[in-house]
């Protein structure tokens, strides 16, 4: 049994990633902590609980940071829709959020089972940074942290230099990156191009005719449309589900290597840039396992498995 904790700013693609984990045999989701990011916190919490209920599971959902450490929030309604779920307006979930604050819950969980729970982060790193500030010993207690974060040696999505999750709370990201935690970086570039879900993928998913399949495409309606209009890309990018797929099926990774990675926090122009020392010119100890390439058919098959 693989035990995992999901930290998420739950909007459409986060929801699909959560669904994948909940539907994967041999994986136990210990808890879901929510953080302000794509959409405000209450919406993240609600979307996470909606997803858990859709899968017929019982997993505690905790509410965490309502804003980035220092920067002002920047919501991504334009990409995820007014409810963060493509404007599907799913009914209010029946389960309330947990009363324990997310950061406290994370600290408790990792301290109770040191070295046993893998952390996956799908949003800004605010909760994790706060947890590390409050409980520096977590560095020894979290065996692995897989992050949907950054853009390794390539363009960003929210600015030419930066990926959204890191850009939104660059200070929190820097705290996490330099903390000594064993980190895996899954950059947004891995979901581009062929890794997008395309028309034939949509057809296949619809043909499954499962609640999971329909949910995956429905809650991403706005994302599909925005991606087409904004980036001229006809298909659906799914960075969080790819990150989850790497956790569930590490074999889909084709190329990965460890490097020193730091986060720009001073400049406005390159705020939140993940600066990867690919050639080791700084001679600094590598702190991040950077994923460079995945097996695209294998990633899609990993997703499809959870939708059937």
């Amino acid at each position, binding site marked *: 049994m693989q035990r995992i904790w999901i930290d998420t700013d739950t909007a459409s693609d986060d929801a699909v990633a959560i669904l994948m984990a909940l539907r994967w045999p041999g994986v136990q989701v210990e808890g879901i902590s929510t953080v302000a990011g794509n959409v405000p916190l209450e919406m993240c919490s609600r979307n996470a609980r909606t997803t858990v209920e859709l899968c017929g599971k019982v997993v505690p959902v905790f509410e965490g940071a309502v*804003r980035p450490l220092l920067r002002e929030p920047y919501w991504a309604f334009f990409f995820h829709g007014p409810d963060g779920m493509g404007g599907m307006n799913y009914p209010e979930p029946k389960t309330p959020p947990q009363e324990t604050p997310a950061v406290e819950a994370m600290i408790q969980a990792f301290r109770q089972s040191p070295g046993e729970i893998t952390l996956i982060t799908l949003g800004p790193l605010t909760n994790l940074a706060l947890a590390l*500030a409050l409980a520096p010993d977590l560095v020894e207690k979290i065996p692995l942290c897989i992050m949907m974060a950054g853009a390794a040696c390539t363009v960003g999505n929210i600015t030419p230099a930066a990926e959204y999750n890191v850009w939104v709370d660059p200070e929190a990201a820097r705290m996490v990156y330099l903390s000594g935690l064993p980190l895996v970086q899954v950059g947004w570039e891995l979901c581009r191009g062929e890794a997008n879900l395309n028309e034939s993928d949509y057809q296949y998913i619809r043909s499954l005719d499962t609640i999971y399949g329909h949910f995956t495409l429905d809650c991403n309606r706005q994302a599909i449309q925005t991606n087409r209009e904004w980036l001229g890309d006809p298909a659906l990018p799914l960075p969080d589900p790819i990150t989850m797929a790497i956790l569930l099926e590490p074999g889909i990774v084709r190329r990965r290597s460890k490097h020193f990675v730091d986060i720009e926090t001073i400049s406005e122009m390159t705020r939140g840039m993940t600066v990867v020392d690919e050639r080791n010119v700084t001679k600094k100890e590598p702190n991040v396992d950077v994923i460079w390439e995945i097996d695209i058919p294998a990633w899609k098959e990993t997703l499809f498995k959870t939708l059937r």
Partner: protein
Amino acid sequence: MPRKILIDADPGIDDALAILAALRSPELDVVGLSIVFGNADVDSCALNGLRLVELEGHDYVPVAKGCAQALFIPTEELGTAVHGLDGMGNTHLPLPHGQLDDRPAAEFIIDMVKAYPGEITLVPLGPLSNIGLALRLEPKIAGLVKEVVLMGGNAYVPGNISPVAEANIYHDPHAAEIVFSAGWPLTMVGLDVTTRTRMNPEYLARLYAAGNPAVKLLEQIHPCYKAYFDLHYNLQGTIHTHDPSTIAYLLAPQLYTGLKVPVHVETEGKCAGQTVPDAWHQWAERPPVNVLVGVDEPAVLELLFNLLTK
């Protein structure tokens, strides 16, 4: 009814004077002491926190240990050149008897503020890491705290740890920025008044002559602090009154004049830790804070003298 205060400190020689004065004041009820790194490492500061509450039988006051470093930046250097390696002027006092509260300081602060909504005055005397962390962990405390009276910053006078920055703010500028933008009632007791409130050798001699445990401790730990002011400011045995000024302000705000002005904290570059008053609202709006700029020095010194010698 005495006023409930929670002191967040890095004791620290001037912290010691402030904390002892507060514990001796019948008008103040010290509901807790939370500890942060700063003048020394957080473990030494925590031991000192326990020593101070035990000194005159206030060991019912809980002491909670907090951040060992700034939220975001690496800690370059602690204030041990000023306060000694043990934070108490290298006097290496006997270990305290009591135990620390088992909560981290930020959690302790949140719990106390929620337990006494609208009643607690936070009195931060060190870097603002615990307070900044508490604000981000539980934003609601901004509306539940009665007020914040902190020692830190400088508006119209130079800094001390750098040409532009005061040490408490400099040690965690990001936390300070969180605290100054939080929108709670905040008074900044900064270098504008603390460097103009000076305890000279005659005053200190009179103070030590009172012979109680508090002043005897101060007499023991002060030489290290004086040596620093001699070396850097050529004050010849006189010391600035930093942390204790917050207690004087709490008890007698009429001894100070303040300006209501928004304050921004520089977090980057050479000027990191600078507190910038924006009197003409030229930068993005934020709630004004009360920046103390004038002080009745003799009256403040007399007030502290009376507290410490009674």
